[in-house]
């Protein structure tokens, strides 16, 4: 249980960063941390004690496998996270070029 708890705590740390930090790059980092924690959470759910990676081989026929479905979901989620992160970074450097800063407080419309 404590594993899940720590994982959710990591999620909330990321949330804290997104909400309180005033730097564009740090906001991106916060979002990425949240995304990592959700990925880990899904994999934790699918774990089975004593299970092995779901790959068939000839050596041992009867084995316990961990759940492959969360792994497939997380693979999707990782790529989606990469997509959002790169798009955010691209916009962040565009904003940096216009203002010369990553700080929200010096960027007019992003205050508050």
């Amino acid at each position, binding site marked *: 249980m404590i594993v899940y708890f720590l994982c959710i705590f990591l*999620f909330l740390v990321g*949330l804290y960063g*997104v909400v309180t930090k005033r730097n*564009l790059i740090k*906001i991106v980092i916060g*979002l990425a941390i*949240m*995304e990592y924690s*959700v990925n880990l*959470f*899904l994999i934790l*759910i699918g774990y089975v004690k004593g299970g092995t990676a779901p790959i068939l081989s000839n050596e041992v026929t009867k084995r316990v496998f961990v759940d492959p*479905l*969360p792994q497939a*979901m997380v693979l*999707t*989620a990782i790529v*989606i996270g990469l*997509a*959002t992160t790169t*798009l*955010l970074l691209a*916009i*962040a450097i*565009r*904003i940096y070029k*216009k*203002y010369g800063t990553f700080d929200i407080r010096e*960027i*007019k*419309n*992003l205050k508050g």
Partner: protein
Amino acid sequence: MDVFIPLFVVLPLAGAFLIAIIGSFAKGFGRIFTSIILAFLTGLSLYVIFKVEYPIILKVGGWELFEKIPIAIYMVIDGLSIYLLLIINIVGFFSAFYSISYIKRFTAENNYYTLFCLMAAGMNGVVVSGDIFNIYVFLEMAAISSYALVAFEIEKEHLEASFKYQVLGCLSSLFILLSIGFLYWKTSTLNIADISRMILSTEGGGLVTFAQVILLSGFGLKAAMIPFHAWLPDAHSSAPSPISSMLSGVLIKAIGAYVILRLFFNMFVISYSISMVITIIGTLSMVIGGILAIGQWDIKRLLAYSSISQMGYVILGVGIGMLVLSQNGDKSIATLSITGGLFHLFNHAVFKGLLFLNAGAVEYETGIRDMKKLGGLSAKMPVTTSTSLSASMSISGIPPFNGFFSKLIIIIAAIQAKYYVLSILAVFISIITLAMYLKVQRFTFFNKKEEDWDMRGISVREVPFTMCFSMVFLAVLCLVLSLLVVPSIRDIILTPAVDVLINAGQYSTAVLGH
């Protein structure tokens, strides 16, 4: 008829990829191709509505049930999905056709049309899907393309609006993914119908409520309901106008309101507390959105705030229906209320789409969005003025137009369900809306003399053909949609959609077949 369902997703996707490849050799390919695809899909959804028996269920990959458990991704078309598909593709077609002239002024036209197709594909995918993780994937597709489209003009304000939109959008997506995790933890399945079965069969304590709250905040952010609305005015006013009309007209409905309806009616058991929360959120959006809107002077910002308010009407109508259903009240009241909500959803898509296109036409000719500096355009831009007038009358609820009927139905339902305060608020906000759009009309199109423009050295004339075409047809649609009150037409289009929500429990039987 199974063959038709994937086309709703495959065609726009193929369009996007082809535009990205061929567009770099042949100029103008994207312009025409996007409109053709969306026109075809509009026709296809009309065909399905009138000619085909639904619900249609398609198991992607052809995997059958395994020990009565669905293992494939399901694509489901029922009354509600096809209703939403019709809205998305109609508004999408007119926006794409409008873009042909509007986007000529910008660079990277091909990227614009590619992203446009991807956004349409994402929304169609969300609406067609019957699998909660699949909904998440397509929701992200629509959302990411809309982030990029908001920043399309790449000036300061657009980049900032896009960044803000993107941060809040990512937050909401992560909340949605987290609650998908919770649901998977509890039920070990991703199929919506199967999840609803599992939730019914196992008493899960508080987890379902917890997941519901997180889901509601996630999709509430996507639908810009009131505590979560901060991104909408910036994003919707910064996007190019055809995109604003897509965002306000269909995106917040397809990936926000629709998914809330689908999940909270068909997946979870309707509970009193959650339906109360949904009704309160709807009311708050309606009231605060309306009050915030009236003080705006930027025409597109005003329209964006007004979107929050009008979506409040939709959620309010559906919420009252939920409340009545959760208390085992009179089903006819719930039917009336949900009918009003869904009817208003279609109406709002049409007239708000049209209003954003009008605002775009004004901006296209004058380059100004501030209403204080506008005025006296009525003689120079007759088509824009008249279509905008009809949209304004429609949104503020003047009788022959569609907005009147849907608002009337919602208010009547609220009175019948004995929520008098809500009905009074709905009437009050309707009056505020009228005032707001009188302001828009007066300051944008009338008020000043037209010679002002010649003195300022800006030559203003009517917008090009494709833009006029879209605006005129949407204005006609504003009138035609009033026909949905006629019972025989309503039974074909609107009633199946309402039935899906009223008989919420039958969804899983229809999908699973046992």
